[in-house]
């Protein structure tokens, strides 16, 4: 029931969520509530498959996904930062646009409806890590994932480094905590917000590439299936801290992988589909009890 393969599949399952959640955490830190992760990831999925298919190289596909995610997130950046539009309205609209746009493009580009896959579509190959591969158990869990899985692992400490050890991270956190104070010290708040939204778009693009070229090798309509929303929740659960977001994502990954296992012993697939959401909700209940007592004391000082 619980073996190396379980953890290995958990790692694969959590990668798109982790990448998107890191994007969300970055935005949150700069005071941008980004709920467009789902749609941006979906665009990344499509662009990854299209790039990979037309170039014949999966790396061109990954690059296309990254660029498409960045370009797509420009909509949110312009809308919320330059035009001061409502972040929730824009986020929902951007998600809806992604569904419509990819469904439209799959017909105009690939000439099919619903989904596109082909045996010759290049996907991401598993990377065997020398040495580590031979360690019992750990090797089976940690080795043999796609390169993007490893990228996502590296992204966590890199984000922590940027946020806490680089000047740009300090400024960014200030922009998120108190934009008017940051502006009064000569920090260009809008530029930082553009930066995090676009960087977040790139991360979501990679998340899409991993989903469509790593976890599977195909594109299907609405294939993100709520992962972007899980990422939004992971940001909240992880309090927008890089390591916290990682912990939350691992929780979802385990819930999903464990769910697959339960199917093996006769539980219906639908029960396991619901598992990550239920686990998340339960985790939030536990965490919010602590947060709530803190918030209650903070409220006295608001007045």
């Amino acid at each position, binding site marked *: 029931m619980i073996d190396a393969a379980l953890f290995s599949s958990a790692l694969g399952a959590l990668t798109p969520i982790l990448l998107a959640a890191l994007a969300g955490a970055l935005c949150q830190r700069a005071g941008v509530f980004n709920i467009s992760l789902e749609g941006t990831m979906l665009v990344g999925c499509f662009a990854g498959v299209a790039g990979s298919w037309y170039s014949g190289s999966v790396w061109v596909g990954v690059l296309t996904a990254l660029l498409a995610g960045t370009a797509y997130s420009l909509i949110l950046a312009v809308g919320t930062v330059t035009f001061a539009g409502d972040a929730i309205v824009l986020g929902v609209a951007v998600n809806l646009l992604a569904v419509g746009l990819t469904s439209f493009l799959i017909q105009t580009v690939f000439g099919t409806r619903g989904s596109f896959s082909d045996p010759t579509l290049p996907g991401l190959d598993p990377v065997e890590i020398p040495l580590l591969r031979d360690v019992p158990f750990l090797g089976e869990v940690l080795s043999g994932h796609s390169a993007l899985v490893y990228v996502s692992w590296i992204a966590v400490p890199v984000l922590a480094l940027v946020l806490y*050890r*680089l*000047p740009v991270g*300090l*400024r960014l*956190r*200030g*922009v998120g*905590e*108190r*934009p*008017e*104070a*940051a*502006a*009064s*010290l*000569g*920090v*260009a*708040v*809008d530029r930082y*917000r553009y930066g995090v939204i676009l960087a977040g778009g790139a991360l979501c693009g990679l998340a899409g590439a991993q989903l469509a070229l790593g976890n599977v090798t195909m594109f299907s309509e609405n294939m993100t299936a709520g992962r972007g929303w899980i990422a939004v929740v992971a940001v909240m659960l992880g309090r927008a801290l890089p390591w916290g977001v990682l912990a939350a994502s691992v929780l979802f990954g385990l819930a999903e992988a464990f769910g697959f296992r339960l199917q093996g012993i006769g539980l219906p697939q639908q029960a396991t589909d619901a598992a990550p959401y239920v686990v998340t909700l339960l985790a939030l209940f536990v965490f919010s009890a602590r947060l709530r007592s803190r918030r*209650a*004391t*903070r*409220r*006295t*000082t608001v*007045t």
Partner: protein
Amino acid sequence: MTQPAVQLTGIVKRFGELLANDHVDLTVARGEIHALMGENGAGKSTLMSILYGLLRPDAGTIALDGEPVVFDSAARAIAAGIGMVQQGFALFDSMPVVDNVIYGAEPTRRGLLDRRAATAAVSELVERHGLRLAPTDRVGDLPIGVRQQVEILKLLYRRARVLILDEPTAVLTPAETEQLFTVLRDLAADGHTVLLVTHKLHEVTAVSDTVTVLRDGKVTMTGPTSATGRAELASAMTGREVDLDRVYPAGQPGAEALTVTGLTVDGRAAGRPAVDDVSLSVRAGEIVGIAGVAGNGQTELVAAIAGLLPARGSVTVGERELSGLGVARRRAAGLAHIPEDRAEVGAAPGARLTDNLATGFHRRPPLLRKGFLRSGAMRTHAERIIERFGVRAPGPSAPMRTLSGGNQQKAILGRELTHEAPVLLVEQPTRGVDIGAVVGIHTELIAYRDAGHAVLLVSAELSEVLGLADRVLVMYEGRVVAEFPKTEADPHAIGLAMAGGAPRGVAGGTAEDSAGGAAGGVAGAAGGDEADVVGDATGHASENMAGDTAGDTTGDAAEDSGGGAA
């Protein structure tokens, strides 16, 4: 060599139809403390925002040490050696002092933040200027007075030669204010130039070398402080004679209407409660005033009585015990409340005046009939309040935010008084209200008392408390530390109690005891010097009438354009 450190010439700034700065000239010599005075909306904040690069003037020039400069951003002004501490704090509470200080000008080593160098630099500044804080302290945990010092550290770290402080003392205790002034004198002696924006006369006379007064966007007076009388400054600032120190005749108290016993509200930090075992009572036909420096539990006390904050202890209105009841039940039992925060708590700025005035009356006749709200009745209700309390508004359908601060306050006052509740809680009734409207609001409160209602008044303006209250309570660190009847309410003694000079637990004692004990206690402990300062601060509290500048149009506009990113 004799070039002035700062010279503004012919500055003009318009916001729509409002002329915020009308050909303003300002010359500030190197190494002096220059006070910039004026009432709300006189254009002080606008002028300083222009100097700091947050706003661009429509006309006029800026010269530093004789060199003309043009600032299109705060960053440019900072680079030129100008630093500004804005109203309220521009600090990141979650970060340590050192991060706040270096923010935007971080030292790096191989691309990484160099925290060691930063801490060393900040420690050195702290020591050189004799500040009382550690670089690693989290700003959110520091007392208000120390946060002000963090703001100044930020400027010194950036090697600012010209320091602008916009109303820095609004949130400070008298002792913290004096500490700040010591730091400022020290900085000026060190060759820094200090521009102090204030509307408090006693601060001008206490610390400045030169003073410039603005009124309606124009300079009305400028000259050395020592050669300028207070009366002269006051009339330059207001342009008329207003009797702000009016003391209203005492009321005729009847039965106890509001009784608070052992009320305790938990504080932000574990350990010290925000309101600590407070007992008080207010009788019908009586105004009880609560004096105290902001942040000593007054806000929390009123919020707890109104049911907005959870609290232990007992609150009774008439015969009715209110503890455990929600806001609606308490209001129904006979409480009305004029809150401190007009924009967020007392009103809905985006909603129509009619809706704002109907709130609280919407569950009973005449607004409600057979389960439905009558829009005609709502309109009549609003028109009646507008008429009766002289609210100047385009009409009942105008959104609340289109009204001036004073008229918003009159509308809220009217709504709450119309309840005819036996007990009225009032916080900062004239903050940010034009002087003309102050007297009207005071008259209404006195009339309400004389009609047999009980009023609990919280105000940061001591003159207001002294003028209106039949009895004065002083709050310090969450406790009621002194009590004075109207006849014995002496600004000097109250000022001492506000600064924590009253012995603990005297709330029940006689006024003479507590006042005498307080004065003696501080004189013995801290020497006569501090007592003098406190006396000065409170004795001239009347000039603070214009209050906080939160509702100030030009200030708001300046903030909007400055923090446009938000």
